[in-house]
């Protein structure tokens, strides 16, 4: 209770919103994300004209479109980053419900764009891929459940979140979208790990993931072809991965030069899943390493800031969001580098695609919101410990 005393200095009701935001936000992460998006646009200039040409559109049609999506994503990002953790939680859980419904209705209204999996809603001006939005929303939901389970007499949040995870993975596998399914599983695993999973159980989960992979290999020809292509000792240069690997080699350290690359005209997914190959060919290893370092900075800074976090929900949600983002980037680059079997996974912010970039904006926006510096009661804690 504030006591109103005459003559006392007026109590400030709060800092103005924007200065507070700027003071508390992780500006390095913001900078990294801007840089990544800039690189994405730059690569879009290189990678998308062949596609535009194929579709009979003006050469920079997709770049313009991406710039518009990027602007939208940025607005979303900034908006999300201004939320309080509580608002993040509410927004995330609500979004999860909506996205989940959209995901369930995919088989009815979705289209597959001739790519072998029903993952998209066609919206006329563009397409909408619910599973991209599912990831941040799911992370928030699961973090909420897990944090709640740590309260005294809290609900069995871990079990519930695990059930939700399994359900989602099942739906995604049915699409089939093993890439997103494994990301969801990975995100949940990270949160459970942070929330104090017993080591034995973690090993068990790792085993289950391996078993699931084997099942996917045996059950789906789609997956089988990709994994076989990955396991083949020498790359078949006629596959996407073969072209990508060759493009990386062609690029060398400094690239073949702007606009000189060829891989973009061979690869149907040059502007999305294999954007990094375009980067490697035209700008060389330098740009690839820059991209990797930018993602690493975003992830590691988020984790570092979460070290000081006292609120379990923020901790779990932040770790989950950062991991999902980092893992997605790593899988994308790892596929092009032939470290991982081919998965249809975009490079957040860099790849072309409205769903992808806006979802990435939401993810990083929430991450920024959660990693904002807040009064954490650290002093109280220290005092208590010392005086204890």
């Amino acid at each position, binding site marked *: 209770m504030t006591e109103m005393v005459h003559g006392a200095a007026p109590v400030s009701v709060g800092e103005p919103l924007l200065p507070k935001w700027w003071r508390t936000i992780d500006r390095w992460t913001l900078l990294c994300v801007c840089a990544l998006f800039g690189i994405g646009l730059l690569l879009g200039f290189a990678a998308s004209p062949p596609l535009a040409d194929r579709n009979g559109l003006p050469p920079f049609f997709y770049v313009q479109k991406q710039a518009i999506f990027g602007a939208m994503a940025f607005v979303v990002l900034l908006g999300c980053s201004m939320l309080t953790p509580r608002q993040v939680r509410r927004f995330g859980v609500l979004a999860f419900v909506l996205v989940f419904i959209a995901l369930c209705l995919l088989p009815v209204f979705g289209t597959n764009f001739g790519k072998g999996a029903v993952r998209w809603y066609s919206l006329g001006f563009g397409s909408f891929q619910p599973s991209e939005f599912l990831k941040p929303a799911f992370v928030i939901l699961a973090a909420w459940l897990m944090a709640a389970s740590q309260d005294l007499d809290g609900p069995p949040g871990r079990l519930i979140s695990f059930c939700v995870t399994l359900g989602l993975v099942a739906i995604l596998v049915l699409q089939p979208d093993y890439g997103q399914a494994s990301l969801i599983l990975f995100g949940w695993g990270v949160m459970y790990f942070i929330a104090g999973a017993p080591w034995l159980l973690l090993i068990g989960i790792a085993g289950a993931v391996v078993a699931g992979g084997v099942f996917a290999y045996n059950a789906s020809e789609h997956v089988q072809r990709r994994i076989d292509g990955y396991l083949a000792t020498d790359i*078949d240069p006629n596959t996407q991965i073969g072209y990508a*690997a060759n493009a990386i080699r062609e690029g060398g350290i400094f690239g073949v030069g702007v606009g000189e690359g060829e891989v973009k005209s061979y690869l149907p997914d040059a502007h999305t899943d294999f954007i990094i190959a375009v980067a490697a060919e035209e700008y060389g290893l330098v740009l690839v390493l820059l991209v990797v370092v930018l993602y690493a900075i975003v992830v590691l800074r988020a984790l570092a800031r979460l070290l000081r976090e006292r609120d379990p929900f923020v901790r779990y949600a932040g770790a989950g969001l950062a991991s999902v983002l980092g893992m997605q980037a790593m899988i994308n680059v*790892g596929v092009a580098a032939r470290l991982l079997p081919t998965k249809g996974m975009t490079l957040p912010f860099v790849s072309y695609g409205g769903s992808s970039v806006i979802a990435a904006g939401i993810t990083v926006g929430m991450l920024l919101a959660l990693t904002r510096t807040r009064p954490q009661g650290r002093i109280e804690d220290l005092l208590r410990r010392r005086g204890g």
Partner: protein
Amino acid sequence: MTGPGSDLHDAPAPRRPLRPLARILRARDRGENPDLIERANRAERHDHIRDRARRRAEGRLLVLGLFFVAAFGTVAVRMGTLASSDPAEPVLSAGGASITSARADIVDRNGRLLATNVVTSALYAHPHEMVDIPHAVRELARVFPGRSEADLTALLTSGRKFVWIERTLSPEQVQAVHDIGDPGLLFAAREMRVYPNGPLAAHILGGVRYGREGVQAAEILGVAGIEKAFDDRLSDPAMLADPLRLSIDLTVQTTMREVLEGGMKLFAAKGASGVMMDAHTGEIVAMVSLPDFDPNHRPAPLTSGDQADSPLFNRAVQGVYELGSVFKIFPVAQALDEGLITPDTIIDTQSPMRVGRHRISDYRNYGPELTATRVIVKSSNVGTARLARELGSEKQREFLGRLGFLEPTSVELVEAPGAKPLLPRNWGEIESMTISYGHGLSSSPLHLAAGYASLLNGGTKVAPTLQRRDGRSLGPRVVSERTSAQARAMLRSVVTEGTASFGDVAGYEVGGKTGTADKPAPNGRYYDDRVLATFAGVFPASDPEYVFVVTFDEGHEIVNGEPRRTAGWTTVPVTAELIRRTAPLLGVRPAIEPVVQSGLREARNGR
């Protein structure tokens, strides 16, 4: 909290709230609300749990951070190694999935071309990229007379994005299609197998077909003959520059085909076959089967009827026949080799000869007894049957086995292993007697040629081959040199004074044996008006160099209104013509007969 700070790390959560009664009672005494104490306890416990979770999470967040550092590091290193490695040249494909269209040439023994690859194009279309399909269809139908406009329209409007139109195009057709100028009509690089000699050696070469087809290349696969038997060798990238050299002599092959074709017409025969083989090495210098085909346009196999009537059927290798009297030399030679007889031993040839309920008789009755040589010269079934009975079936079987009559020939044709000789199910006395004159055992003309070569070349086994051999290597001995010489002398007598008198070719000492075998009818008996007429032999008889086997299937000649079917009238004169033409090509030196005998006077300078 009272305990020392370090306890917090290890000690379990303080259980104080479970022991609240003392405090609560004390509080009650003091008149305080015990619920507050309870709440304070709860809050403390909650904080404690949170603290513990947070400390654990701190460690785990560090682990997670390390994981990401390691993972991003791995990706970066991998990218680095990949970027610093040399780019692979974009090849058509890698590993076992490659389509190779290259194929080595096939040449004859003198290096003349029998089969080669020619670069050509295949035509395919991307209908969705075509600008004017009706126009293109009209023009294509003009360029490819075999294609109708309706078919082409159906093909190009089927909704598919990729359709093959023609497999192989001539350069003129390529130009004509270019002139249509439609961007959706595209050419695929092809290599085409070409047999520049057309049907010559068609059965030996076999043929090819396209295997897997791609836009850059199409696989060429052997389907028959040498092409299939040597498929791996011919498509081996390491040996492309190395043509496969056959034992065939193109000139002799051409001559043989020409002569046999003439004979076939003359005698209205259903088919003919000929084998000319080096007597010492087993190299087949010519092998013809008629009717034949053009391997550039290999016909489809017959879908009904007897495959032996198809032009694809190689009579010399695949056809197994009862070859008749040409077999008679085998029991006689075996008896000579065993020392049972000499060429002058008298043999009982009383015809007919009764064996159980069977009766063996000669074509004509040649009297009650003949010398061994005369048995061959006159071709007496009874004489050889008696010799076979003397020798016994076991020994006969063993002897024919040594000559290679019990197994398929080892010649390098994919068809050869399928041509198993037909042996009697029960090789008893009567069977051995019929086999002695060439009935009851069916074998291919090539078997016979190899058998004759082994017997007559001095007595060492030869295996027939289509690959050129350098130098001879003696095989295992089959009969003694003396037996071989005696057998040649007998065969020479057949030509000079016996059934093959039309077979003599001045200077080349042809020796051979005729065989006129009634063809077996489907009812298990023999036709009385269908024969397989064979002439098999060797030249020159005194110094054997080449062995030949020529057969005509169902040939006959009408002389004075009477049909003559015996080999002496049909096959022998044709063979004589064949030898007359080919012996000089083969480099066989004719023995110049004394001038006086020739009835000519030597030209001399004089007045």
